[in-house]
């Protein structure tokens, strides 16, 4: 597993497509805690895959005023179809061109497979990474670590 950016590092800025015709940058969310959830690919064949789980836990994240962003190397149209099929209510970013560049900057790219790791980052209001975690690629990391990290953020 690569070394993902640790807590205490300033979160690298990015600007990525969030729909086929709209972009979102990390700076747009400054002032709010941000959960950045890298994952390998849309359409994983399990119920309650990582994104579906976060969709269910969304109200818990919102209690902390946090925004969650899913991010994979899938393109914006693929994300759109996936989000529609799974009724996802949070943005999915397309780290598609140049492929995986943002994942690389966060130390969360698997060049062997050409996809992002299952890597989680909780970024504080100040834009600094407060917590990060990289799960084995086959194991959905769940939401407990994210919630604990949000709880420990300075109010």
């Amino acid at each position, binding site marked *: 597993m690569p070394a993902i950016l640790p807590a205490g590092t300033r979160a690298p800025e990015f600007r990525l497509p969030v729909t086929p015709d709209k972009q979102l940058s990390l700076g747009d969310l400054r002032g709010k805690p941000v959960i950045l959830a890298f994952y390998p690919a849309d359409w994983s064949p*399990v*119920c*309650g*895959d*990582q994104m*579906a*789980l976060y*969709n*269910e*836990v969304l109200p*818990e994240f919102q209690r902390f005023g946090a925004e969650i962003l899913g991010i994979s190397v899938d393109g914006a149209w693929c994300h759109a179809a996936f989000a529609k099929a*799974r*009724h*996802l*209510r949070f943005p999915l970013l397309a780290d598609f061109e140049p492929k995986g560049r943002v994942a690389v900057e966060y130390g969360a790219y698997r060049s062997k497979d050409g996809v992002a790791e299952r890597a989680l980052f909780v970024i504080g209001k100040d834009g600094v990474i407060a917590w990060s975690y990289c799960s084995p690629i086959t*194991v*959905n*990391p*769940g*939401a*407990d*670590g994210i*919630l604990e990290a949000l709880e420990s953020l300075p109010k």
Partner: protein
Amino acid sequence: MSKLKVPVGPDDHVQGDPAAACTLVEYGDYECPYCGLVHPTVKRVQKHFGKRLRFVFRHFPLTQMHPFAEPAAETAEFAGAHKKFWEMHDLLYENQDRLDLALLPVLAEQLKLSVSDLGNALIQGTYRARVRADFAGGVRSGVNGTPTLFINGERYDGAPEYQELVDGIDEALASSVR
């Protein structure tokens, strides 16, 4: 590694010997096909271990994906309030391929439960808080989808297959006598 944060307590639905050396906890969703597949597997595992294993089921309905998972969970709780949780639990999984709102009263009737009481409980959300509490505890414990299993409080990340589960439980039993 994720650990079960909510210990098994008097409010849980428990099958098997309370003094069993091993406890298997499942967080499941009645509409999830993978939970449907694991249901007979758990039964075989229970049979294999007998008094050495107790089994606990908690709700983890993925409501955005499965529109009938929440009412199904509340129906199981309704049956539980009439001491028929496990009967309803089995019926829900055995009839999963035709699960919808119309099936719930049919199953209630099969268990000789009042259909109108069930309707009222679902409309009023009598058991919603109970189901939500299971869900919230599951999230805190690192439940990452369904089914998620815990063996003696440790999240089991292996395959939800018979032999793998038996091996996992054997391991837990071996370390509990040490």
